């Protein structure tokens, strides 16, 4: 055939297996710094001269008072909990991108309890009923795609994605059906007068999220232990690693898939419960506000490892609420917080490349060698 001469490779990439812990830390640290720099630059472009003020506002909006800081922690906790819910599923290589809908269904369960049962029973019992309804709704919602995955190998990514919008529709319909008289399409906080079925609120730095944060911490620790030390956690990693191996050692793959995803749903249900009983005491179709999607990124970036997910939950909540605060003082819209979140994750996700691969750039290496030679020559000349 034609004697076409191929060009020399511009760049060559190979998998690396020998990355050390400090290298990993340096790569992640550098990319976080770079991401922060980039977000500041975006702010500076939108509002010239705001580069340093932007960071100042970010800190103000997250650390300035204990109350604000507690709110930050509450949001960090919610993000972490959704990510924790996803971790078992992702570890099993089940791409559950339906956390948004599962949390929403959990919230629906809790709101049903709050609306119909809480006024008639003691608060302690009401809370338990709300909790059970929340995890039941969310678990069922998660189990549907899992059952089809287990028995028919139906694509779970697309299935769970669709389930999100089904959930939104159902909740929207519920809200209209039960809307507060005189208001269109919203339900006012329920039982405001009696606080029946509300999470007890103790004042701690003028903040009412203390119990919520404790519950989140408890669940996170339990799931962390479940993944690391329990037989179930081990089984789901085997299924994720190789379904053939799982069958070979006698693991019932179908059972493990369904069990794990139900667990994933249960944790999402806890999120829904906290959002309703410990948060707004009502429901709206956007109550989860995209956490189900952002948490996927948190979970992925944190490599399904609970402490790392906490780290990223904290960072990303800091970035999004910080930049949102900045936008109220600077002349641009609060959509900066979405942009900042995305930019942050793009950099973090991209940085994993340098953890997993070696890059060889022949021409750059030649260039560096040449420069080195030049220096050596000069040194020699200088020595002479």
């Amino acid at each position: 055939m034609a004697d076409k001469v191929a060009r020399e490779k511009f760049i060559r990439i190979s998998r690396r297996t020998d990355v050390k812990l400090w290298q990993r830390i340096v790569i992640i640290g550098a990319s976080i710094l770079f991401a922060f720099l980039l977000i500041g630059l975006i702010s500076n472009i939108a509002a010239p001269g705001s580069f340093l003020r932007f960071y100042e506002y970010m800190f103000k909006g997250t650390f300035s008072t204990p109350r604000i800081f507690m709110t930050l922690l509450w949001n960090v906790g919610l993000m972490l909990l959704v990510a924790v819910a996803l971790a078992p599923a992702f570890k099993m290589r089940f791409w559950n991108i339906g956390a948004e809908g599962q949390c929403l269904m959990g919230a629906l369960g809790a709101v049903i309890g709050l609306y119909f049962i809480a006024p008639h029973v003691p608060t302690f019992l009401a809370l338990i009923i709300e909790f059970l309804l929340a995890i039941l709704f969310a678990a069922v919602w998660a189990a549907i795609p899992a059952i089809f995955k287990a028995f028919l190998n139906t694509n779970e990514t697309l299935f769970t994605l669709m389930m999100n919008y089904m959930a939104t529709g159902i909740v929207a319909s519920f809200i209209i059906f039960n809307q507060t008289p005189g208001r269109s399409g919203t339900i006012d906080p329920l039982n405001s007068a009696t606080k029946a079925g509300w999470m007890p609120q103790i004042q701690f730095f003028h903040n009412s999220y203390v119990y919520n944060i404790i519950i989140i911490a408890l669940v996170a620790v339990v799931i962390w232990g479940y993944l690391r030390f329990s037989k179930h956690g081990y089984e789901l990693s085997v299924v994720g690693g190789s379904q053939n191996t799982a069958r070979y050692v006698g693991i019932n793959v179908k059972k493990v898939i369904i069990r794990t995803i139900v667990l994933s749903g249960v944790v999402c249900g806890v999120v829904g419960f906290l959002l309703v009983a410990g948060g707004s005491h009502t429901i709206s179709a956007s109550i989860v506000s995209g956490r189900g999607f952002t948490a996927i990124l948190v979970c992925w970036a944190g490599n399904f490892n609970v402490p790392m997910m906490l780290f990223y939950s904290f960072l990303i909540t800091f970035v999004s609420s910080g930049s949102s605060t900045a936008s109220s003082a600077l002349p641009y819209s609060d959509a900066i917080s979405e942009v900042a979140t995305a930019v942050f994750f793009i950099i973090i996700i991209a940085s994993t490349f340098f953890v997993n691969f070696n890059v060889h750039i022949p021409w750059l290496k030649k260039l560096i060698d040449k420069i080195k030679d030049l220096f050596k020559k000069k040194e020699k000349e200088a020595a002479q």
Partner: protein
Amino acid sequence: MLTTSNNIKVVELKNITKVFGSKVANLNVNLDLYKGEILSILGENGSGKTTSMNIISGLYAPDEGSIYINGELAKINSPHDSLMYGIGMVHQHFKLVDVFTAAENIVLGLDKQDYANFAKKIEEQEESRFAELRKQGKEPSEEELKESKKRINAAKSFNIKNAASRIKEMCDRYGFELDPNKKVYNMTVSEKQTLEIVKALYRNANILILDEPTAVLTPQEIDRLFMVIQNMRNDGKSIVIITHKLNEVMRISDRVAIFRKGEHVATVETNKTSIKELTDMMVGAKVDLEIERSTPTDVADRLFVNNLSVKNNDGRVVINDVSFVARSGEILGIAGISGSGQKELLEAIQGLRPLESGEIIFHNPKKDKPATFFHKTLKKIKALAAHGAFHDPDGKRINFKGMSNKEIRKMVNDCKVLFYEDEIVNLKGKNPLQIRELGIRLSFVPEDRLGMGLVSNMNLVDNTMLRSYRHGHWIFLDRERPRKLIEKIIKELDVSTPGTNTQISKLSGGNVQKVLVGREIALAPKVFMAAYPVRGLDINSSYTIYNLLDKQKCSGIAVIYVGEDLDVLLALCDRIMVLCDGRISGFVDARKATKEQIGEMMTRHGEVQ
């Protein structure tokens, strides 16, 4: 024999080095290929023969060294570049798109330049035909000219129908059997291989590289393949055959290049060498080829497979009415062309595959052994006692008459309740977990180590506890015992690893296999099954495995060994069962049989000795 008298070098490899991670796959390889020759590349698994050919075909980029094609420095960065130089490679694992037809697979990846070349070629053919006609004084008719224009234009552009008719022509010329409109997922292995070769020829490949082409073929198919290869050689094409089968090397090739541990050791002319010389070069320094084989003692029937039929994943019956007995203290070898149902047979015994018909009966050697509550409930023991299944240490039958439950428990726990007979269990319809719960310990070293026997992204400890993680500690894992076990395995089997927390995929093939075999032996099995346990292993690791198998046999375990190397089967096993196309073609005594005898049985069934 037409050989390399013309001495035109079509391919020259110069100082090729390729490293994967820490493993050197090729080191300073220099190799020449001449026009119109058949070159065999001989070497053991993992000797770097496939890697070097993958470099020529553009799949891997070499770390160092250069490739010359027709005397010119070639820059091959992708398979397409390699095709441009007229190199076609047929991989061991076929590279075909399942949902495409044969024709679609063949034209896949051709670009405009290729089509222009096709058209040019046809134009040349047509012109010479017309010139011939004119010589005879006949002017081609208007219609004929039109027809030829049409053919040339058709070849210029992408059109599946034209391609299909071109493929048909090509197949007729070479004697291939291939339906251009058949989908690949409906094809047999041999059809797929044919398709791969036709695909390379369609692209006017002058250099054809075949990676282990005979591994999956029947003798008749091999004959046909060799005939085609010789035809192509006579056509002036150069063919490279990667193989480790010596008889085929002697039969087909003009020259042989021998690879060992990533290096090109030597190239010799086939008619000036012998199998023995080739073996020596392939193996290197002479290794003691004597495999330890102990004389079987205490042979007892352990596992009965009766009239078994099993389907593979595609729903085809691959084990058909197979019956045999595996005995304790014996190694039963299973020989056969790969893909004759060996994999499915072992998986069926292990409980991983439903049985279409037939049964698998396990004789649990319980005679005179105490019953325990480990596998049996009190109720079950009482029921068995009523049937007279137990005797006491003095040999008297036990019936527990007039004893309270407490007394019975005490008696069992004191090991005073002994079985009269071996326990007989039908494994049909039971999954691996149920089989284990019955107290039947089957060890199985599957063919696909990292895909079935182990989990590649887990560390050594977690891989070691795959079989035992259910023991103890309520819902939590006990990592202490597996850690101790893997440390023992590492020490005893000389596994080279940075530590017990290393991810298993980072270990070399031999070490991975040692971990797997070590774990399976630690189960203290009654039946030990191993499928191709030495595939891809170096000589020393292979011998470690052979010795382990022999040791298992001596400790009264029924060993089933599926292998591909007949020499090893003959040296290691006691009996050999030969499979052909999912049926048993016979059993032989490994101490008396010859390779030729087995080889013949592998390809013909029905002759039971």
